[in-house]
């Protein structure tokens, strides 16, 4: 095939990018080379629109062992233990083929983690769907949930937490973000940097097929009406092979024969070999005839661009090939020496004794395009004035029931019951709490993780929204008693070529950076997914934040269920009555405008750290952060989980009762304390200048405000649990 500008454009490259390739090579690329450039230079692999802004994120910290740039981030949790973690998107493939798209998303992120030598110990996910009324939503949800379960369950890694949201902006572009945490010994972490000359380059895992060719390019484009034709670009997962690959790799890693290892994810053999060569400042020579292929007559182009799953590339010490091969034979996996490291600083590919590609590595990596895209700054919307007459005819209990059964608030048990969340025998907090928690096997330590996004806030004001998501992640870890360590982010946005969408990206990243810096909650890994848009319509900006924290003694872990009658319930943090962008405003008052709640990072940090002190002193019986739906929603969930009720006092505030109960002011937590320790608790709160209100006391079985305003917990539970099950069974 003759390569020209049109062929380059068909590969998703821009005209000037093609000209640059010709200049860098000082000739026209052949088709295999063009394929390699298109794979490396697309948005998904090159971060060409985002790199400039991502550089500004805080990535360092006392506990950070590895920040962004490797397969995953690594943090120190003491005693030579480290946690490897990352979140990644698989949005485009999941919309086209929900089961395989979601499954391979989970498979891919687990591979990123065990590539570094860590055994995966927990999975999480953040999934976003269109309006429940949209004709595709139900099937997409079912397919994605089956896919996530199908892969994670088979791997034997518990899925311990997640979030599911519905919003019409995802009607044409769903989001599937998968996160994995792995456990590794600090002195046994593996990296992707190749080193040494003439070292064997080894291919292990599944055979290479024609599936997923140009998957990464597909993930770097918007959808149009021809979307169904893209099905062949979706990879097909085989969790069984990945389980074998995991065990085989960990077995090999127990020895000392690996110099570098890299999984073949997006852009397959292309990106893995180039990444290893680039990091090691070396060249790599590959004989493509040696690559194990699933199908006959695969061309060099297809072999290099295949995104077949469950494959790894390893640079091995000389002379260790036999020993390594034995391990992969034992696990019935392919093992092939396909090339070697060289000092050419080039990627040289051979096929049928002919050279089929000859590209300097730096042209693919350092010289890849980087754009300073135009972007538009968002204005802070004006506050709405809520009139008392708007609230006059509203009944608190009716609103509460509506809020609890809202698709974005209701119980997601239908989903997480389909995920094995208890395998590995260390899950001490299951899905449905503020964070999932797993013990560090055989120790008193436990690791907590949560994944959050607040697209509505980000849409209303990206800078504030970006800060808010980080704070929410911080709170979800603190409310179960974990000390927040670091985050991973999955940045889901519309087209970077659209100034508004690009502005959303830039300002969300800025917000994430500011909050992460202030809270000492650095970003150690992540991924960017642009072009979540169909035709001209982009999704709401949706950064997902995966937070990880540590509990030193897991017996001190807190859960959100109310524990004992007569205990006192407090809300920590001040309630000013911010209603704009709240669930109440959007769904009850039908008011979609206005600013999101403000973030005060000082209060956020101070309130959180003070609560951790209370928990550490053993003074907190249960805790839950206040998020969408406000105080009364948070309290109701604690009642439902604990099967207890609460007598709520009338708040001593100038604001309306409804505003007090449903406002979404930030930096707040609900806590339960015993009568005996109330004084101690309030002393500590006062000493640390943390605002609190006493909300009420725990009773047997109802949420009671006054004789006219009360409801049984059973009734609230029905509102909260039935929506999703009913929706899926219709």
């Amino acid at each position, binding site marked *: 095939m003759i390569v020209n500008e049109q062929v380059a454009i068909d590969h998703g490259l821009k005209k000037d990018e093609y000209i640059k390739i010709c200049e860098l090579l000082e000739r026209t690329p052949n088709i295999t080379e063009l394929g390699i450039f298109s794979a490396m230079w697309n948005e998904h692999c090159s971060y060409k629109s985002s790199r400039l802004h991502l550089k500004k994120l805080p990535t360092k910290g006392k506990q950070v062992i590895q920040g962004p740039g490797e397969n995953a981030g690594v943090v120190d949790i003491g005693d030579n233990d480290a946690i490897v973690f990352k979140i990644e998107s698989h949005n485009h493939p999941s919309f086209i083929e929900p089961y395989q798209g979601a499954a391979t998303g989970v498979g891919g992120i687990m591979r990123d983690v065990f590539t570094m030598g860590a055994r995966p110990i927990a999975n999480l996910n953040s999934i976003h769907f269109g309006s429940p009324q949209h004709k595709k939503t139900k099937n997409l949800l079912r397919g994605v949930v*089956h896919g996530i*379960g*199908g892969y994670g*369950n*088979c*791997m*034997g890694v518990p899925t311990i937490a997640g979030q599911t949201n519905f919003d019409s902006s995802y009607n044409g572009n769903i989001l599937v973000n998968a996160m994995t945490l792995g456990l590794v010994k600090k002195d046994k972490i593996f990296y992707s940097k190749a080193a040494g000359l003439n070292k064997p380059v080894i291919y292990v895992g599944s055979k290479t097929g024609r599936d997923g060719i140009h998957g990464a390019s597909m993930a770097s484009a918007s959808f149009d009406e021809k979307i169904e034709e893209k099905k062949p670009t979706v990879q097909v997962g*085989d*969790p*069984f*092979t990945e*389980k*074998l690959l995991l065990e085989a790799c960990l077995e090999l890693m127990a020895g000392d024969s690996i110099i570098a290892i890299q999984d073949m994810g997006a852009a397959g053999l292309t990106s893995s070999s180039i990444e290893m060569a680039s990091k090691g400042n070396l060249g790599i020579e590959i004989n493509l005839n040696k690559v194990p292929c699933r199908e006959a007559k695969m061309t060099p182009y297809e072999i290099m661009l295949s995104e077949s799953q469950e494959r790894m590339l390893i640079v091995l010490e000389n002379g260790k090939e036999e020993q390594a091969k034995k391990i992969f034979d*034992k*696990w*019935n996996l392919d093992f092939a020496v396909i090339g070697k490291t060289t000092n050419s600083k080039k990627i040289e590919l051979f096929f049928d004794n002919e050279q089929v590609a000859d590209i300097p590595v730096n042209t693919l990596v350092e010289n890849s395009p980087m754009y300073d895209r135009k972007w538009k700054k968002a204005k802070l919307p004006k506050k709405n004035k809520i009139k008392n007459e708007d609230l006059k005819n509203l009944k608190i209990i009716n609103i509460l029931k509506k809020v609890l059964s809202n698709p974005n608030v209701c119980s997601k048990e239908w989903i*997480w*019951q*389909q*995920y*094995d*969340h*208890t*395998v*590995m*025998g*260390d*899950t*001490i907090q*299951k899905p449905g709490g503020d964070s999932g928690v797993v*013990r560090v096997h055989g120790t008193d330590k436990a690791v907590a993780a949560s994944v959050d996004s607040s697209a509505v806030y980000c849409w209303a004001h990206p800078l504030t929204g970006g800060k808010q998501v980080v704070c929410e992640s911080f709170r979800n870890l603190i409310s179960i008693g974990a000390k927040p360590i670091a985050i991973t982010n999955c940045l889901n946005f519309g087209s970077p070529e659209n100034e508004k969408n690009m502005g959303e990206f830039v300002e969300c990243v800025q917000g994430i950076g500011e909050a992460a810096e202030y809270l000492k909650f650095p970003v150690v890994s992540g991924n960017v997914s642009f072009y979540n848009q169909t035709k001209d319509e982009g999704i709401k900006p949706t950064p997902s934040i995966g937070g990880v924290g540590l509990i030193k003694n*897991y*017996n001190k872990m807190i859960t959100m269920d109310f524990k004992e009658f007569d205990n006192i319930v407090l809300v920590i943090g001040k309630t000013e009555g911010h209603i704009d962008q709240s669930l109440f405003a959007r769904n009850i008052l039908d008011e979609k405008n206005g600013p999101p709640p403000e973030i005060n990072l000082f209060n956020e940090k101070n309130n959180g750290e003070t609560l951790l002190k209370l928990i550490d002193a053993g003074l907190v019986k249960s805790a839950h952060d206040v998020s969408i739906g406000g105080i009364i929603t948070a309290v109701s969930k604690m009642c439902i989980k604990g099967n207890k009720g609460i007598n709520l006092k009338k708040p001593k505030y100038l604001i309306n009762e409804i505003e007090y109960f449903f406002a979404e002011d930030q930096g707040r937590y609900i806590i339960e304390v015993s009568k005996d320790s109330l004084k101690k608790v309030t002393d500590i709160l006062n000493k640390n200048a943390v605002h609190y209100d006493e909300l009420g006391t725990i009773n047997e079985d109802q949420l009671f405000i006054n004789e006219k305003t009360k409801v049984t917990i059973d009734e609230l539970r029905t509102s909260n649990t039935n929506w999703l099950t009913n929706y899926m069974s219709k």
Partner: protein
Amino acid sequence: MKSSVITFPGSNCDRDMDVALKKFGFKNKMVWHNDTELPKSDLVVLPGGFSYGDYLRCGSMASKSKIMKSVLNFANSGGMVMGICNGFQILVETGLVPGVLLRNKYLEFICKNVFVKINNKKNTYFKNMDNDVLEFHIAHNEGNYFCTKDQLKEIEDNEQVAINYCNRDGDLEEQFNPNGSIKNIAGIFNKEKNVLGMMPHPERMIDASLSGEDGSLFFNNLINNLK
């Protein structure tokens, strides 16, 4: 007491079972599916997971593994063999216990706590157990036990039903059946009661911090009965 846990390609509850057995006093060994001989054992466990990816049929390929010849001989000579979840599916495929395990009635994987009622205590697994109802944990996609009418009669006549799904109070109604199993059957013995296959995972219920502690009751009772 000595125990052996077999690891098949795709087993993923083998470590959990190893942890549980050791916690309650067994000297446990892990045995590779490709080995031919079982170490000397008082109990052999086929653990949960997705042996051979559940391809062809759950448990089908594993039932033909090299080690299974020894396991069959061991079972047929009266040795204690317990299959949990995928292990139960493997036992069914070998024919050591009757019946088959179909896909769950609602066609979805289920992971949750369930209650089971012990149907027969005249065996080494449940003898001397104080409780009649245990809180166990299930995590499976194909746990819907089925057998023919004739088989069911034979199973019942021989008192081969080990445990049934029920509620906290031991009521065996259909609404407490999570997967559509015939007669709420959650676990079943061979005729001689030395082989037990069950869907629930007692090894996930061995610590107050986990889903519960009724698995501890089970393992403690089992090792005492074996002594």
